[in-house]
């Protein structure tokens, strides 16, 4: 499924924090309708890479472009408006608002902007998509953990992004929830959305990703289908250490 047009591309993207190189010279492309897994051991720079794409951090060097237009100099707000939306590693909801209002935030200010009844109707559709439409008027404090993740996902979807960034969206779920979660993302994938997935859950990577980019200590060490990269000796060494390779 790598025949579509390139939506997002990173060229030499680098992030340094003082002497520490968190992301080193990353190159990769994401094509339309593709689900790309960004994987690697803890501290390998996956989340930092996601932060560079979403504009939470600005790259020290290199460029990131959306459909050929450089976006790496833009603010997070501008990048969101151009159509890159993200979830956060630790779920971030708007605590003073209802479920529906949380989702409306995405519908009102995102890539495609709506207002009034149109925004509410759209937010409700997104809630239905993640299976939470019955709880639209609940307060976010009353939700279970997976439901908070669903609200965040619905908020992101409500902005109709061109690229969806999911930062360990499946982390912390129990086995039943995990199944539901994987099924939900699979549905998004089948709708033809373009997704970058930072993930540790191997089952999810195998069943969801078209392609994977593997990072270790800030550098890309492998790229290919899940089967290819997960059997790559260097990837195994990065995950498990030298002795087991």
């Amino acid at each position, binding site marked *: 499924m790598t025949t579509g047009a390139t939506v997002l591309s990173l060229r030499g993207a680098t992030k340094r924090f003082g002497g520490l190189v968190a992301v080193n010279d990353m190159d990769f492309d994401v094509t339309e309708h593709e689900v790309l897994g960004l994987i690697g051991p803890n501290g390998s720079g996956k989340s930092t890479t996601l932060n560079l794409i979403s504009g*939470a951090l600005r790259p020290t060097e290199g460029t990131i472009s959306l459909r050929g237009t450089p976006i790496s100099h833009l603010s997070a707000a501008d990048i969101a408006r151009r159509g890159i939306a993200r979830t956060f590693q630790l779920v971030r909801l708007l605590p003073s608002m209802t479920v529906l209002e949380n989702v409306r935030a995405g519908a009102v200010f995102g890539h495609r902007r709506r207002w009034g009844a149109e925004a509410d109707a759209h937010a409700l559709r997104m809630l239905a998509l993640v299976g939470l439409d019955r709880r639209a008027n609940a307060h976010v404090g009353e939700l279970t953990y997976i439901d908070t993740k669903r609200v965040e996902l619905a908020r992101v979807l409500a902005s109709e992004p061109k690229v969806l960034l999911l930062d360990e969206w499946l982390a912390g779920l129990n086995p039943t929830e995990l199944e539901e979660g994987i099924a939900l993302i699979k549905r998004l994938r089948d709708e033809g959305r373009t997704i970058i997935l930072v993930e540790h859950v191997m089952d999810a990577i195998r069943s969801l990703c078209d392609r994977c980019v593997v990072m270790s200590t800030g550098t890309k060490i492998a790229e290919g289908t899940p089967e290819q990269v997960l059997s790559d000796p260097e990837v195994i060494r990065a995950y498990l250490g030298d002795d087991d390779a």
Partner: protein
Amino acid sequence: MTKRDWQSITLSAVLLAVAACLPLTGDAYMLSIGITIAMYAVLATSWALFSGPTHYISMATAAFFGLGTYTTAIGIENGLNYWVTLPIAAVLGAVLAVLVGLATLRLSGVYFVIFTLGLAELVRQVVTWGQNVSGQKGLYVLTDITEVHIYWQLLVLAAIVYLTGWAIGRSRLGFALRIIGDDEEVARHSGINTSRAKILLFMVSGATAAVVGSVLAPRYIYIEPALAFTPMLSFLVVIMALLGGTGRLWGPLVGVIPFTLLWEAISASFPNQTTLLLGLSFLVIVYLLPRGFVGLIESGKRKLREREAFA
């Protein structure tokens, strides 16, 4: 607009009309308290428009207020009509708000509080210095505007502030501000230009405080920096707004009325201990009523609903 909107608008108009009749009583003391209440109602409400949703506590009210007072005083001294000085004060207040906003709104929490507190003091010192250089101590504001005129002007201003607040509350800007207050990171990543939204609201708040200063200038007759830029004003506005609660547009007003009356009593009975008692009331409010009267009323309503649900 819904039926409820019409109800609130009608109710507000009636209340305003009743308030406008106060001077007809002919009681000078009542009028003087009425002016103080109207003045703090406008200041606290416009303060809460910005600080309520964003939780950025601004201590700069005195800077904007003093700026307005001095604009009118200097304007009249140089032969300008009083009415011309009001819009000038509004524009200057908005400009000062933009400057402060650009410099500080990237700061958050306590840094913003300290900066705004320092700003009021800085402006006061600059004006004092300017007057020392020019050899003047203060300025006379001599007009034929009476207390009644001042009172009515403040009521009109209050109506404008409430309408503005109501319109903002229903707009994208108001929604953006609530999101910013909840989580600025989410706001940014949802596509909200957070600095612009905050500066716009801070301008509304700053311009209003400046106009209030202008309107009040003729009342003082003689103004000097220590009076026009008194930090006490900033503190009182914050306390009153917090006492009422910032979660609703009418919240600050509910704090302003009892606190002004209390303050009158304190100033009359304990003129030498006012600062001490101000500090004490601040502590009491923050400890006992963290969400103000609005919070009290709403949790009361919720309890009542729960009890009905059980019954």
